[in-house]
């Protein structure tokens, strides 16, 4: 399968009837409010003060659009993502790149030339939310992740590096040497790149090889103009520059977080932009918070859960990271259980990233049906025997319950975790759980009597 671009993806969504185009001229200050009222993804075709630019948003704000992206059924997203990302394909270097049709350096670098949107009422400034950020470390190699960027000046943004990540680690190593960390920020890349960037890959894993696996072919990369990095050649816009060696000293936020909470002011480093490249007719991608972030997180969390279960020799049947937990903090899985595996499964699921609630059921529970889960929680759980709690695990700042504001600048939070084994307990005869079955249902058809 050939590598698809951001524009190919837009065409796919449009063919599926999932995009509406707004042709009237829109002020950038109106984009978020209009997109929030649209059930479909939105493309703003004419932006006041930004001739030649378009903005696309809410492209992945539903599980259906994610399934269209992965070309699978909605209940097979985790399995499809896991299988595709497992076959890692190295990227390839190309010379000519659409993302470098226009190159601005020196005095021509001006972030106000981008329709930088104000997204939420309590945001500390306009934000670029849908980024694919590439960095490199001499020892650990290339890394890609997604980090929000708050407008500060025409040449500087804040960059959110409060949470543990490979790039935070790279930045800390550069900071220890008193050096800046060069980065390149691609905006408007295919969702496969965004999914790969969301993936908690082990350090030394190049996320671009995961993206290649998802595409079924190599991601074409082009060398940046001013930093020793490579970016997806078919991106819409690229910001090149460096994170200054100032540490976590600049105010950043609040921002409408993927936790669906506004968050608070954080202390973060500053990204200084040295070069802006883009297509001649660029499409700015405004990742709609929290939904696009949450739906992007879900398959990544679910796939990590499937892998953790298999490593623990537990056979998964289905898995779900509900959007109510932002596709991130909760995992619900049904399993083919052997004695003791309800608890083993919990330990496995709680080892995934910052998952703080795990629920495990037997295979006959439909985990996509909240009523079925409630039934299992009610009749399979004894609170003094089937709960597992852990303290002092890695947490995430955006969860207010972990009191991250008490940590000070650059501090890393801890969290407690809860697992609920909602499988039928060992020692209780399964016949006690025999569900009601209506007598004669298979012999008669209602329509014959209406």
């Amino acid at each position, binding site marked *: 399968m050939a590598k698809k671009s951001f524009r190919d993806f837009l065409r796919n969504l449009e063919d599926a009837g999932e995009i509406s185009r707004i042709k009237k001229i829109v*002020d*950038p*200050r109106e984009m978020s409010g209009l997109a929030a009222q649209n059930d479909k993804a939105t493309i703003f075709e004419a932006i*006041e*003060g*930004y001739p030649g630019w378009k903005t696309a948003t809410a492209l992945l704000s539903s599980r259906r659009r994610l399934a269209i992206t992965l070309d699978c059924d909605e209940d097979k997203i985790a399995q499809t993502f896991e299988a595709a990302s497992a076959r890692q394909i190295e990227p390839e270097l190309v010379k000519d790149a659409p993302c470098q049709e226009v190159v601005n350096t020196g005095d021509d670098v001006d*972030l*106000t*030339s981008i*329709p*930088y949107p*104000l997204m*939420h*009422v*309590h*945001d*500390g*400034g*306009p934000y670029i939310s849908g980024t694919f950020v590439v960095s490199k470390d001499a020892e650990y190699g290339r890394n890609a992740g997604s980090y929000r960027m708050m*407008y*500060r*000046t*025409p040449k*500087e943004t804040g960059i959110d590096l409060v949470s543990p990540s490979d790039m935070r680690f790279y930045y800390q190593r550069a900071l220890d040497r008193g050096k800046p960390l060069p980065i390149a920020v691609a905006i408007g890349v295919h969702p496969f790149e965004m999914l790969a960037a969301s993936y908690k890959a082990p350090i030394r894993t190049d996320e671009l090889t995961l993206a290649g696996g998802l595409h079924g072919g190599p991601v074409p990369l082009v060398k940046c103009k001013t930093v020793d990095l490579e970016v997806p050649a078919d991106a819409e816009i690229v910001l090149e520059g460096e994170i200054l060696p100032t540490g976590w000293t600049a*105010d950043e*936020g*609040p921002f409408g977080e993927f936790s669906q909470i506004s968050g*608070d*002011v954080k202390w973060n480093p500053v990204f200084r932009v040295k070069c802006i490249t883009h297509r001649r007719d660029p499409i700015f991608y405004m990742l709609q918070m929290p939904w696009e972030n949450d739906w992007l997180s879900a398959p990544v969390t679910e796939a990590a859960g499937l892998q953790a279960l298999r490593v623990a020799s537990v056979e998964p049947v289905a898995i779900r990271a509900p959007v109510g937990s932002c596709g991130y903090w909760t995992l619900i899985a049904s399993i083919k259980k052997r004695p003791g595996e309800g608890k083993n499964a919990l330990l496995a699921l709680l080892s995934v990233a910052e998952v703080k609630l795990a629920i495990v059921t037997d295979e006959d529970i439909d985990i996509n049906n909240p009523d079925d889960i409630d039934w299992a929680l009610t009749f399979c759980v004894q609170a003094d025997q089937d709960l597992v709690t852990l303290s002092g695990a890695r947490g995430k700042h955006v969860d207010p319950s972990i009191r991250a504001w008490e940590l000070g600048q650059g501090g890393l939070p801890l969290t407690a975790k809860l697992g609920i084994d909602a499988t039928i307990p060992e020692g209780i005869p399964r016949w006690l759980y025999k569900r009601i079955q209506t007598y004669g249902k298979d012999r008669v058809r209602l329509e014959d009597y209406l």
Partner: protein
Amino acid sequence: MSALCKVIQAKLTETPMQFAEVVDDHLDVPWRHFLQAWGQLREEDILKRDDIGRYYIEGGAAEAIAAETKAE
């Protein structure tokens, strides 16, 4: 410093404001001009934040109001 920048500076010295409130005060200004003016204030390194994320500038009533917010 641009005229718009001076207007925003005067207002933030008088009272702390959320960024969106500052934006709302200048909806008649082209977005790009507004961003440039905001960038100038940032470059002056005079913007402070209070506990609820509002911006203010020291030297006027805003500072005391912001401090009260901290105490709440």
